[in-house]
């Protein structure tokens, strides 16, 4: 059975473009141009993966994710945005998105990202991997804040390779580990990103915007 995909984007032209690209590989069960319709329909349709835009009126992608997570915990979200601003990425990941890709992504890469998300994995684009490395590199070791999760050196290795443009398969070969292990590392990084010290990440994000 093919993966059920739902699309949310207030930019109609872009929405129809993505729909056409994904229609071959997935079952597009519906789409919405606004937050309220999206939340109502996703609750009813219970799709496998929701591709959601970040910047929309009435709360944007964060509102969609938060509006659905409580009622339909099995729905997985992939953020798809023109923005690669640190604040946007942090907000979406915190809300519960399993991945974040920019709209410049190549169609085949988008399709594989959707498949990966459906399989329960997290999706890190090279840019997002660099962003996570940057955020955690700036975080001060846990003396004054025991809650702050640090990345293990293995997780950093995986992120570095992804940031260098390696596919998961190549990462696995390079580090002599299985793809499954790579996916585990990426998922645990995602979890740390979702749980890590709010203050540190926010400060890092705002600093990054200035420089």
């Amino acid at each position, binding site marked *: 059975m093919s993966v059920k995909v739902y699309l949310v984007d207030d930019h109609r032209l872009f929405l129809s473009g993505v729909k056409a690209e994904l229609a071959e590989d997935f079952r597009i069960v519906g789409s919405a141009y606004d937050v309220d319709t999206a939340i109502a329909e996703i609750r009813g349709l219970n799709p496998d993966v929701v591709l959601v835009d970040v910047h929309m009126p009435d709360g944007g992608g964060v509102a969609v994710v938060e509006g659905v997570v409580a009622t339909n915990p099995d729905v997985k979200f992939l953020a798809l945005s023109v923005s690669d*601003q640190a604040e946007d990425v942090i907000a979406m990941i915190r809300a519960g998105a399993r991945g974040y890709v920019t709209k*410049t992504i190549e169609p085949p890469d988008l399709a594989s990202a959707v498949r990966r998300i459906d399989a329960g994995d997290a999706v890190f684009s*090279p*840019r997002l*991997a*660099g962003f996570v*490395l*940057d955020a955690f*590199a700036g975080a001060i070791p846990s003396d004054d804040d025991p809650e702050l999760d640090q990345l293990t050196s293995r997780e950093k290795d995986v992120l*570095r390779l992804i*940031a*260098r*443009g*390696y596919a998961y398969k190549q990462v696995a070969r390079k580090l002599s580990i299985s793809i499954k292990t790579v996916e585990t590392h990426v998922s645990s990084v995602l979890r740390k990103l979702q749980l890590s010290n709010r203050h540190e990440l926010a400060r890092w994000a705002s600093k990054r*915007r200035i*420089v």
Partner: protein
Amino acid sequence: MSPNRSGSSLIVVAVGSRHHSPVPAIRSFEFKRRETDRIVAGVAGGLADTLRIPDSYMRAAFLTLLSIWGIGGALYIAFWLIAFDKIEDEEVETVGSSQTLGLAAAFAGVVLLLGAFGWWPNPVLVLTAAALSFGTAALSDSSRPTPLAGLFDPNVEKPSRTRILIGVVLLIGGLSILNIRVGGLFEFSTVFLAIALTGVGVAVAFGPWVGRLVGDLATERNERIRQEERAEVATHLHDSVLQTLALIQRSGDPARMAMLARHQENELRDWLYGIVPLDGIDLVSTALKGAAARVEEDHEVPIDVVTVGDHPVDEQTKALVGAASEAMVNAAKHSGADRMSLFFETDDDQMSIFVTDQGVGFDPSAVEDDRRGIANSIRTRVEKAGGTVEIVSEPGEGTEVVLRMPVEDQ
């Protein structure tokens, strides 16, 4: 205090105001006492609202009149009695200091008139009071930035220089008269009297004009700044986005279109989010993005640039950026890959750059001469600056050029 005298003072206000730019409220002479922002009972404030002059000048007028047989006090009480209501604290336009001019002129006229009948008030007292109160008013006028605030707070707009001058002259004049009076140096009093009078004259004559001029200039300047900003945005969009869109419309090649759009996107993004070197310090990340954009443009291969951390550009990093640029050119020419990535990372000890492609790759131990040449030029450049170069490749497995450079403590 005879009713006759306070009556003439009332006329002073009315006559003076009628002669210079009549204000609708004056005709019926309705005024309301101020409820907030008042000192005694809000009479002066209310009158200032009605006459549309700054509070401080109105209060100065009352103080000055107080020195003429106490007329000011009588007037204040009279207005207090006829004030039938309070006024809400509202924003009142404080332009039109011409009313102040009228008040002062009419006041001087009445004093002279009374003087002609031999009813001089004590001139020293009156002039001292006038100079001190109006001088203070000019300096502390709450409707405009005060000179003192202007001196200490760089955010406050520069106050009118003329107004400061007038205020200072009035204050000095008034204080001098007081000093002479106390010291009993009557022989010089006329000179200082003349100075004080000249000060008042200048203030009255040019004050409102200067005030209006400064106001107009400020409005005009704000308008000009807005227009300049608009023009700048328009110029930028015209030179960049519109040109690119035109190119895209004319281009039949999808790859070329994608390249143009991508290039424009990066450029617009940097412009929108202000990603420019701060304080003239060039950063490695910016230099690398620039280098990647040039390679993208020349060779039509998209390059994903990811940077972690940053470092200012110096001789060492210049070599690193130059080598990375050559590595990108090399990959664009020979790898056959349809995209590549550049990853820059710096920590406390070293900077690393990875130029990675998924192209045809090659056997590093058996390369053609021209490729060895490029590899050597990369190597020479980086090693001369104290770094290392590693080239990892296998036929069919893509190529990765790794450049490392120790970070020097500064």
